[in-house]
């Protein structure tokens, strides 16, 4: 597309600068960790237990999520039912939910004393333990089952309708239909989905923090946190952070090789497909799958809101202060993330080596937040009291964590805009910011709005680095909620959860809507 050197000068340099900043921010902590561990890493048998638990829970969570996502995606693909659009939207929601709210919801719905247990009790039945492996896997399924289902549904959408009709016309039976249509979808979708979900489960922290804990249910991320906050063993924290970073880089490398630039959060998934529907048994099965999945997703959240709403008015001031702090931090982090990704994307579309740079950029960002936080901590500590830097570091890390998502949403649209508008812009003599403003922005504002919404929601609900650094009395809303849960002020925790949920969904919605200004 670029016939001759493009006079984008300033913007391209700004982009290269942004890329350099991102690389510096992500790689310097790695160096700090490596420097501390240069005398060899010190691992105890229990750290191996943490590594084992991390892999076991991730494997279980991933396999179960995928196993249930397959029938769910099929049911949604081939049925039309009232509320189908809403259901498909709901399947996208867990991604932007604050983890702590979802986990709290899961406890109050499926816990030993939760809603289901209360319903079952008169019949002499109970719910199994939610703490430990069960709970961690259940929570990971809550987040990843819908993600996997959306990935598979996306692949269903990509099957040409003609191919399905051909199969019908040829009279392919159930087994042959599975082999020639469905298996082809799954064969291409499941491996990358497996790697992505496995990676997400390996680096999830908040779930393990709340539902795990004891030596039996400690993930590497949690062990990093414990080495810091319980034992103040920087050497072990660094060793664990190095292992976590290596594991994530390895998985991320595979994921990058395997994944197509397909966005499971994309739109158009609510279009019903004309697929063979099978008989009554199939219909009943699909109905059951949809209802169960719907309940699984809806129950925890409605339960939290139901319990939390009555307490909104008498929440302590700390909660509102934390909410304000979180909101401001989310906005800062979003602004930073959007600027960085816009500049980087502008540079990437200009460069021949873009695919490699993009890969490096994404790989660096795969390093877990706690590993990054550990590195940052080690760098800050000789200079200042790191606790007093908790909020800025959190803003920074959150912006970095959202960057891959925003980049992935932005790049295809920007490439398209460049392909269609660059010549016109050149002919009109538009340069630098003017060109971005007139030629690109109107065409990428939608993915940018969507990306900003994601970044804001993710930052709003983040409970990662902040837990490592922050003083509880200057915490964010998720941290304050965690504190209230810890102090067993459940009603206030439920109220705070409702506020957090409302804020996360609102910031997402507002930014995403904002992307439609040219529409």
């Amino acid at each position, binding site marked *: 597309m670029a016939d001759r050197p493009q006079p984008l000068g300033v913007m391209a340099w700004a982009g290269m600068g942004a890329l350099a900043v991102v690389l510096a921010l992500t790689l310097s902590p790695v160096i700090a960790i490596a420097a501390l561990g240069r005398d060899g890493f010190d691992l105890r048998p229990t750290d191996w237990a943490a590594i084992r638990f991390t892999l076991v829970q991730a494997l279980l969570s991933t396999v179960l999520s995928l196993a249930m996502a397959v029938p769910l995606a099929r049911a949604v693909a081939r049925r039309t039912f009232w509320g189908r659009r809403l259901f498909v939207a709901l399947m996208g929601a867990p991604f932007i939910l604050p983890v702590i709210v979802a986990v709290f919801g899961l406890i109050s719905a499926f816990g030993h004393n939760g809603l289901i247990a209360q319903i079952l009790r008169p019949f002499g039945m109970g719910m199994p333990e939610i703490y430990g492996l069960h709970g961690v896997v259940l929570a990971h399924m809550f987040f990843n089952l819908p993600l996997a289902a959306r990935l598979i549904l996306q692949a269903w959408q990509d099957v040409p309708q003609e191919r399905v009709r*051909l199969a*019908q016309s040829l*009279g392919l*039976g159930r087994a*042959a239909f599975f082999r*020639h249509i469905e298996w082809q979808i799954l064969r291409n979708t499941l491996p990358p989905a497996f790697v992505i979900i496995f990676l997400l489960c390996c680096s999830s922290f908040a779930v393990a923090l709340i539902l795990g804990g004891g030596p039996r249910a400690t993930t590497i991320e949690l062990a990093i946190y414990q080495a810091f906050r319980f034992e103040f063993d920087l050497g072990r924290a660094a060793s664990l952070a190095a292992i976590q970073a290596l594991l994530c880089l390895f998985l991320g490398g595979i994921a990058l090789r395997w994944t197509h630039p397909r966005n499971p959060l994309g739109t158009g998934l609510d279009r019903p497909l004309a697929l063979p529907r099978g008989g009554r048994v199939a219909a009943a099965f699909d109905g059951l799958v949809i209802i169960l999945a719907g309940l699984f997703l809806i129950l925890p959240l409605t339960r939290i809101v139901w319990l939390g709403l009555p307490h909104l008015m008498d929440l302590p001031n700390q909660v509102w202060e934390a909410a304000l702090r979180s909101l401001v931090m989310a906005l800062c982090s979003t602004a930073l993330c959007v600027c960085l990704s816009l500049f980087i994307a502008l540079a990437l579309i200009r460069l021949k080596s873009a695919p490699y740079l993009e890969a490096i950029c994404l790989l660096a960002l795969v390093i877990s937040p706690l590993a990054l936080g550990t590195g940052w901590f080690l760098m800050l500590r000789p200079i200042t009291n790191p606790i007093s830097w908790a909020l800025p570091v959190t803003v920074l890390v959150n912006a970095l964590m959202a960057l891959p998502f925003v980049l992935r949403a932005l790049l295809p649209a920007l490439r398209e805009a460049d392909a269609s508008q660059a010549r016109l812009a050149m002919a009109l003599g538009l340069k630098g910011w003017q060109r971005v403003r007139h030629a690109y922005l109107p065409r990428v504002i939608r993915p940018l709005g969507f990306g900003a919404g994601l970044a804001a929601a993710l930052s709003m609900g983040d409970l990662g680095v902040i837990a490592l650094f922050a003083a509880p009395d200057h915490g964010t809303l998720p941290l304050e909620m965690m504190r209230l849960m810890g102090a067993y002020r459940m009603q206030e925790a439920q109220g705070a959860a409702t506020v957090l949920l409302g804020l996360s969904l609102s910031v997402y919605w507002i930014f995403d809507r904002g992307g439609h200004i040219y529409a």
Partner: protein
Amino acid sequence: MLELRNIVYRTTSFTLRANLSIGRGEKVAVMGQSGAGKSTVLGLVGGFIAPDEGQIIFAGRDLTQTDPAARPCAILFQDSNLFPHLNLRENLRLAVSSTQKRNAQTDDQIALALDKVGLAGLEDRHPASLSGGQQSRAGIARVLLQDRPVLLMDEPFAALDPARKREMGALIAALCEELGLTLLLATHDFNDAERICDRVILLEGGELMTDCPIKGLRKTAPDALKPWL
């Protein structure tokens, strides 16, 4: 012998109403803009969608509730006529038996069909390694093997260049003649229709506007058809 009796099919954008009778061996072009209901007519006949009202009759048999596979129809699309993960032989075996049973007789039939469409010896190739024209021919070979009296074609030539279009048109026309097929061809190109068909139907917003023989149409076309010529 193929009859659409008082058919009503409602979609969000239009309602298709059709009363149509097509004789054995008749070759009918279904024309209209996209969204006029061309594909819907083919879908109804092929059994991929069910009408809200009315019946579809073939040779005195009511097919309205019959499965696509049990209908006397073979279908040819613009593309996706082949499964990309199977080679030509495996694809064509499916046309003979959905269980893809291996037997020498089937393989002979496949070789014969491929020869007939000019793809002799390409059994082991995968669709991705064939040109667009070759893929269309392979689709025709599949139709041959399916051996159904009715052929439904949904814009089969839309992606081909004019020379290929002519070539394919001739091939289809010869085939229909040889096997006595009844043909429903959905197209928006009158040249395609003229090359193969002997009758034309024009749809607009789901309503049947014109139904007339194609011969001599260029001279005495009804007003509704004029813009299409």
